[in-house]
């Protein structure tokens, strides 16, 4: 990526610095380099610095991109951002280095007689619109689908929802955030009746304990982890890592506690047992602000097509809940969780001590779980029983993986069941959407259709005959790609892929649309702490690249919906945001006006009377609390949060004689999700060029496997052969292997199982049974 205005020597120096920072990140968990590096960059003093959010991960760090002669030549952390205070991780620093990759998609490609032919973008959009229209005419509106992303901007998600639900009239819209935080959503909704964390990152500055539940923050949320380490060093705050694998986070924590996969459900219940048994319940809080409920049990795993489940909540009382917990004494749970009685009591004591301020963090470990909703409920139970919630330094905090999983997927609502406010099942929510969208309310169907996994099953079955994916790479990220890749290759479905780079998903497309990258368009993201972040376009994209929102608008116009999409090309981002903002008016979810977002490095909603609400549901901080009490969980009609009785149930598939190992999959610090961007950043690619399989050293000895030996990982779905890694990056427990999923050349998702949480429909990528063979 040698650019105009930056000579080769300066560029090589930047690469050398980047290589050293990446190497340092591999040696020191949470290491952060501050903006001093920029002082030494070529032309540093003359660069035009533009603000925006980072493209990678849900933390939402503020970045400043240095522009020289229309090219992005440097990135630094935004010192004005309350999220990262000028810090960035290795991915953040190097993010713009991918955009001029040699294989960048710069023009539309249309498959003709099996060959991709470069086609003018307007012609390609004609083809997309005509095909979509013809499919609806021939097979009905539920034969077309869109699959978008937690990396889509707020305007991109909004116009996709408006086109599908308001204009066409189908709920066939879902997004890849289903794969990463749908369980967090259903957890929030079932417990509090309102989505997204009640606290904010400032909790880090106050908490005495950070308990991370199945969450390798040192690699996945490195800037937040560095903020925690700073508090550890400064105030003696403690980090407790509760996981199934020893990681860099474990090594940097004060204590690492390992558990048998799936038994986090039992351990959470055991903590609640201890809290009650030792008299640590905050009785006044629970009496005033909580109800108790139970749901159905033995709820299945969704591995069969067209699986359907609806929970049936029923109220219970405290005594019934206490009785239920008798099956979860530390002594009983220790036997199958492999967590010692002492460690269970240690965790319970941290939460139970009224003098401790405790934040629980989690991400994929709890969400990608066949009982993900339950797991979220159970951690909320702990915080509700002890009253450690909605206060600075006290609270449960579900982290997101993608930069706008909250802002776009959850708030705009690019799930099949969602609308920008509320859900399609609710007549009032449909009426509001119809009013703002200016469509007849009958246009919006009242029943959800396909969640992500079921959407690709429907493609495979031939029920969906047209699908358009934007900002996502499902043929690497879906579970059980061994089924869904051949499904997408079938002639029965016309596939449109909008992306920045070629991917295994674009390889099966009939039309490939060249998308603008993050800084080549204006946009808004929403991060994990309810912070909305705006940025202006910083550089021009190459060729005929176009932002996804404008592509959707162009297709909508071509389909005859132009009146519903009256936005201008120059200003559509602002116009769409101003329209969208109407959905959230009020004290419970008010969004900041554009002029504020353009000035600030992100603003937390609810934004009320010119002020962000940092801790929701606490009357001291949240103007929406109006019950006259200290706390008000106003998402529920009676203002009370729910403590849920949720049992331990086994995983969908557990190791047996033939498939003797658990397979756990996940991410690495160098790569963003499926690697389509970060593998095109030379320094990150060189630091982590390929996927690998981690084994426990004792398992490796038994199987005669040494580091770098090739190992075949096989499940009932498929297999993948990778080099072995023993005692290197991470260390799985005995009987478990770990494989990162970023590598499209070593597709571990051919092996994974498409079981999901029946409530959230989020797949479990952390647990299936595999056999391991040296090849």
């Amino acid at each position, binding site marked *: 990526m040698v650019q105009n205005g930056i000579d080769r*020597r300066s560029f090589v120096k930047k690469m050398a*610095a980047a290589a*050293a920072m990446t190497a*340092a990140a591999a040696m020191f968990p949470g290491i952060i*380099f501050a903006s001093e590096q920029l002082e030494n960059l070529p032309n540093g003093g003359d660069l035009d610095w533009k603000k925006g959010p980072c493209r990678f991960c849900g933390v939402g760090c503020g970045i400043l991109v240095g522009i020289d002669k229309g090219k992005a030549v440097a990135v630094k952390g935004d010192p004005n951002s309350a999220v990262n205070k000028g810090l960035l991780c290795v991915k953040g620093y190097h993010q713009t280095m991918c955009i001029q990759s040699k294989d960048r998609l710069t023009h539309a490609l249309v498959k003709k007689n099996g060959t991709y032919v470069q086609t003018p973008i307007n012609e390609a959009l004609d083809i997309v619109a005509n095909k979509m229209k013809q499919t609806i005419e021939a097979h009905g509106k539920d034969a077309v689908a869109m699959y978008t992303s937690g990396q889509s901007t707020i305007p991109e998600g909004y116009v996709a929802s408006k086109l599908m639900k308001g204009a066409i009239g189908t709920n066939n819209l879902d997004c890849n955030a289903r794969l990463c935080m749908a369980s967090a959503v259903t957890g929030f909704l079932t417990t509090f009746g309102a989505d997204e964390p009640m606290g904010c990152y400032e909790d880090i500055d106050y908490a005495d304990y950070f308990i991370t539940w199945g969450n390798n923050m040192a690699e996945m949320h490195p800037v937040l982890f560095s903020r925690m380490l700073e508090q550890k060093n400064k105030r003696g705050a403690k980090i407790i890592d509760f996981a199934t694998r020893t990681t860099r986070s474990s090594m940097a924590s004060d204590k690492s506690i390992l558990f048998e996969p799936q038994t986090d459900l039992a351990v959470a219940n055991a903590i609640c047992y201890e809290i009650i048994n030792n008299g640590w319940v905050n009785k006044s809080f629970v009496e005033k602000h909580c109800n108790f409920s139970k749901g159905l049990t033995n709820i299945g795993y969704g591995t069969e097509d067209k699986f359907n489940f609806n929970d049936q909540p029923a109220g219970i009382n405290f005594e019934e809940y206490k009785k239920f917990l008798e099956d979860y004494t530390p002594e009983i749970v220790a036997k199958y969780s492999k967590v010692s009685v002492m460690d269970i009591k240690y965790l319970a004591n941290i939460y139970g001590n009224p003098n401790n301020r405790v934040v629980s963090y989690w991400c994929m470990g709890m969400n990608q779980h066949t009982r993900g909703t339950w797991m979220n409920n159970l951690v909320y139970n702990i915080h509700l029983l002890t009253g450690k919630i909605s206060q600075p330094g006290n609270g449960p905090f579900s982290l997101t993986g993608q930069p706008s999983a909250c802002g776009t997927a959850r708030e705009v609502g690019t799930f099949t069941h969602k609308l920008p406010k509320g859900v399609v099942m609710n007549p009032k929510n449909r009426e509001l959407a119809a009013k703002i969208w200016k469509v007849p309310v009958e246009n919006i169907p009242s029943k959800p259709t396909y969640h992500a996994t079921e959407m690709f099953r429907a493609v495979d079955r031939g029920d969906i005959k047209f699908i358009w994916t934007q900002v996502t790479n499902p043929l690497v990220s879906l579970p059980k790609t061994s089924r869904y890749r051949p499904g997408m290759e079938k002639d029965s479905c016309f596939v449109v892929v909008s992306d920045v780079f070629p991917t295994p998903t674009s390889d099966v497309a009939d039309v490939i649309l060249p998308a603008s990258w993050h800084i080549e368009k204006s946009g808004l993201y929403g991060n994990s702490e309810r912070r909305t972040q705006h940025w202006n376009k910083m550089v021009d994209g190459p060729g005929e690249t176009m932002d996804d929102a404008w592509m959707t608008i162009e297709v909508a116009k071509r389909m005859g919906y132009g009146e519903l999409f009256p936005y201008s090309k120059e200003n559509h981002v602002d116009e769409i945001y101003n329209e969208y903002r109407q959905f959230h008016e009020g004290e419970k979810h008010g969004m900041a006006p554009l002029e504020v977002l353009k000035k600030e490095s992100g603003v937390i909603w609810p934004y009320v009377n010119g002020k962000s609400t940092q801790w929701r549901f606490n009357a001291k901080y949240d103007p929406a609390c109006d019950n006259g009490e200290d706390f008000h969980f106003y998402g529920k009609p009676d203002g009370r949060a729910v403590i849920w009785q949720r049992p331990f149930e086994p995983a969908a598939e557990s190791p047996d004689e033939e498939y003797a190992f658990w397979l756990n999959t996940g991410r690495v610090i160098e790569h963003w999700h499926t690697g389509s961007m970060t593998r095109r950043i030379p320094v990150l690619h060189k630091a982590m060029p390929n996927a690998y399989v981690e084994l426990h050293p004792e398992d490796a000895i038994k199987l005669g496997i040494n580091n770098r030996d090739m190992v075949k990982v096989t499940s009932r779905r498929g297999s993948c052969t990778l080099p072995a890694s023993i005692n290197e990056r991470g260390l799985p427990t005995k009987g478990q292997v770990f494989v990162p999923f970023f590598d499209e050349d070593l597709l571990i998702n051919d092996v994974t199982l498409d079981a999901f949480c029946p409530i959230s429909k989020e797949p479990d990528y952390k647990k299936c049974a595999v056999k391991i063979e040296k090849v």
Partner: protein
Amino acid sequence: MSIKSYIIHCEQDKKGSLFSELQKLSNCEVIPAQNHEVIIVVTDTDSDESDNQLYNQLLEMKGLKHMSLVSGFDPK
């Protein structure tokens, strides 16, 4: 004619003083870690002789515990 990058591990509480001294060297870019006793140095020299000279100069600096080469480029 080479560009090299190094990770320098500092002695306890010496990062600040070492950083100041490193900044005085010509042909060096210096990037301190915010939260670890680590400094990254990128050297840019025009001959093997000056490269060796700078390398030895770095090794002799007070407060330096350990130095490891990460990358070397010849941008000719």
